[in-house]
């Protein structure tokens, strides 16, 4: 195999590959990226056996072929090469080495046979549809903060993507929760998504997927089966197993009868929460919200380290209310709001609180209060 490729294109492909590769590996081949050269393309494939990413980049292929080489080493080399360099990769089957040449730099890397590289079995997909990158970006960006890291409830370690009945008919919905907060994000149903089985997309896949979605004009082809999900752009294909488990019935968690409504500028609110939380060093810092007639007082009282209080003008017309939350959770949901005011709907100090942006019900957040 011999090919030449622009440093920028190579860096993009290799960095995607090395982020899929697990840092600690017991199977040596899984630390490698499979490079295949054919026609006018070079493809770079990496896997951790749960996720597989294939990145295609235009290249001048002198001699078709394939080999595998350490993803991190290749990434480090390419990263350190000067911008604009043309990189030549040559696999020598006699020595079992891959030569990387750019300008006057020359590297020779150990390889492993391409036959040893595990290729993810292809799957029958029950549903295929395309969705604009910004739509997918919003679905996952706004829900991923609520993904649980708890090992015991492994079925919460991802985003539940499924078809649901929304306010205006069928909707493509992403839900994530860790039992303390929940995010429910809706998007218009793409054509052909109606038969999609509900799947739990693992946390790592959500992170990898995000790298595909930066281009606003891009359409992403999504294929879903009971066990796998695939996202494909013209250059990159990301295939992932989904979490084998049942996502809990989240609908009963979302409060319907919360009537005490507070409206507040989300960024003012977030900044105030952040400021008062400074005095507490505890892991779960509790912020107390005292609401009374268009007035919100945020306070933190940490007996060991100090106390803080801040007053904020809000729109609130219900009876007095005192309720406590984990500061981190408040900050995270407040930072999801980007256009309008944040609207909080409370019931009592012990019941879950609902937050949304203005009157938009396509993104709804629920957070559990804590005793203060």
């Amino acid at each position, binding site marked *: 195999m011999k090919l030449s490729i622009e440093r920028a294109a190579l860096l993009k492909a290799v960095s995607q590959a090395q982020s899929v590769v697990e840092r600690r590996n017991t199977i040596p081949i899984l630390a490698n990226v499979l490079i295949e050269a054919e026609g006018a393309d070079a493809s770079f494939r990496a896997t951790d056996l749960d996720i597989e990413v294939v990145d295609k980049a235009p290249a001048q292929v002198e001699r078709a072929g394939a080999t595998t080489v350490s993803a991190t080493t290749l990434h480090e080399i390419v990263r350190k090469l000067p911008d604009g360099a043309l990189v030549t990769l040559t696999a020598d089957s006699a020595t079992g080495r891959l030569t990387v040449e750019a300008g006057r730099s020359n590297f020779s890397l150990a390889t492993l046979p391409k036959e040893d590289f595990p290729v993810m079995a292809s799957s029958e997909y029950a549903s295929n549809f395309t969705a604009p990158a910004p739509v997918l970006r919003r679905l996952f960006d706004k829900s991923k903060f609520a993904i649980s890291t*708890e*090992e015991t409830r492994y079925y919460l370690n991802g985003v539940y993507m499924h078809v649901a009945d929304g306010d205006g008919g069928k909707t493509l919905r992403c839900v994530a929760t860790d039992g303390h907060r929940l995010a429910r994000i809706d998007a218009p149903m793409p054509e052909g998504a109606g038969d999609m089985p509900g799947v739990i997309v693992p946390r790592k896949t959500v992170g990898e997927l995000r790298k595909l979605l930066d281009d606003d004009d891009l359409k992403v082809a999504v294929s879903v089966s009971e066990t796998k999900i695939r996202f494909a752009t013209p250059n990159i294909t990301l295939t992932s197993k989904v979490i084998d488990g049942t996502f809990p019935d989240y609908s009963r968690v979302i409060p319907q009868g919360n009537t005490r409504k507070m409206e507040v500028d989300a960024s003012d609110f977030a900044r105030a929460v952040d400021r008062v939380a400074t005095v507490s060093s505890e*892991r779960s810092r509790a912020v107390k919200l005292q609401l009374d007639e268009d007035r919100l007082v945020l306070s933190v009282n940490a007996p060991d380290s100090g106390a803080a209080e801040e007053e904020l003008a809000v729109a609130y017309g219900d009876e007095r209310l005192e309720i406590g939350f984990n500061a981190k959770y408040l900050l995270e949901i407040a930072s999801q709001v980007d256009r309008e005011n944040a609207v909080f709907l409370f019931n009592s100090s012990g019941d879950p609180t609902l937050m949304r942006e203005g009157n938009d019900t396509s993104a709804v957040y629920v957070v559990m209060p804590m005793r203060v």
Partner: protein
Amino acid sequence: MPAICKDCIAQFDPAPRCPGCGSPRVVAHPELFSLSIAHMDCDAFYASVEKRDNPALRDKPVIIGGGRRGVVSTACYIARIRGVRSAMPMFKALALCPEAVVIAPRMAAYGEASRAIKAMMQTLTPDIEPLSLDEAFLDLNGTQRLHGAPPAVLLARLIKRMKDELGLTGSIGLSHNKFLAKIASDLDKPRGFSVIGQAETQAFLNDKPVRMIWGVGASGQNALNAAGIQTFADLRRWDRKDLINRFGPQGDRLWHLARGEDYRKVSAHMPMKSISNETTFDQDTSDIETLDGHLWRMALKVADRAKAKSLAGRVVVLKLKRANHAGLSRRTTLHSATQLADTIYRTARPLLDGAKDQGPFRLIGCGITDLHPESHAGHEADLLDPGAEKRAKAERAADQIKARFGQDAIIKGRALR
């Protein structure tokens, strides 16, 4: 050379008997009044408490321990004459001393006696470092002016008070650091009072075996023997660097200990690192119902201790020992720290389910680590588990009932398994 009488605490110049009361129990040592680090170790503590509470046992051999598979936790001095030692398997102990009275430990009674002793020690110094219920280090440095007597006198008074007021005896080791004080307290038990002074430290240690070092067990001893180190004299011949190269960071500690040097302070507040509990079964079992019952009772005990100490743990650990003594342990990190038996049990149970095929087991243990103050414990409410908050409230209510009416006032059916 100063001397004191252990019976009447009189101070005098050395004589074979106390000039005041005629007792032969005299301690004399050139540095007696200048040393201030002490180790107090009760004599056959559990057995002594039992004998005190039941005088009929006074002249009988008494062994504290439990179950057919259990081990001796304490043997009284009568049983020790027959060769019974602590940590000896019970069947072996009973073979040596068939007429011994075996008593299951009454931890509550020992805890109470321990607290009474600690209260007495606290009148002498705040710098007390308990090692267990029946032994503690005391740093009496700087207390002479306050109490109007040197540490040795205060310690002799402490032992006398323990005997007079609590009916319990103990031994004292007095030296210039913790390492030597602990060795000293063991030198002439029971009712001992041993002193290791600065001047004699080297000579004292020379021919002593290195297994005297706290923390050097069977495997440590093997490692040292393999390096040709049997005694402290052998150890002292080694270069400091060579010891570190061979034994790692422990090597440095060994180098200092070889010279009788130990710079650890007597610290009253050793932060607790974990809370755990374990049980050895009478018979190996793989019955999940039985294991489950044990798991729940242990979760309760762990939770009780955590609550008593106002602590909460973020990592739940399950420990199992298989019939062939191979241990296995499983752990889960929680979202936030807990001190609730319900949460500990519910977290450990799936771990048990995951390991149950490897049974039968001879031991099960459960505990929490990564401890935080209880104020750091997370909220008990869970969106997806509406029952969690109710169960937490029920547990707190049960705790209050137990506090008023006793530990057995309210239990779960699960605890009877």
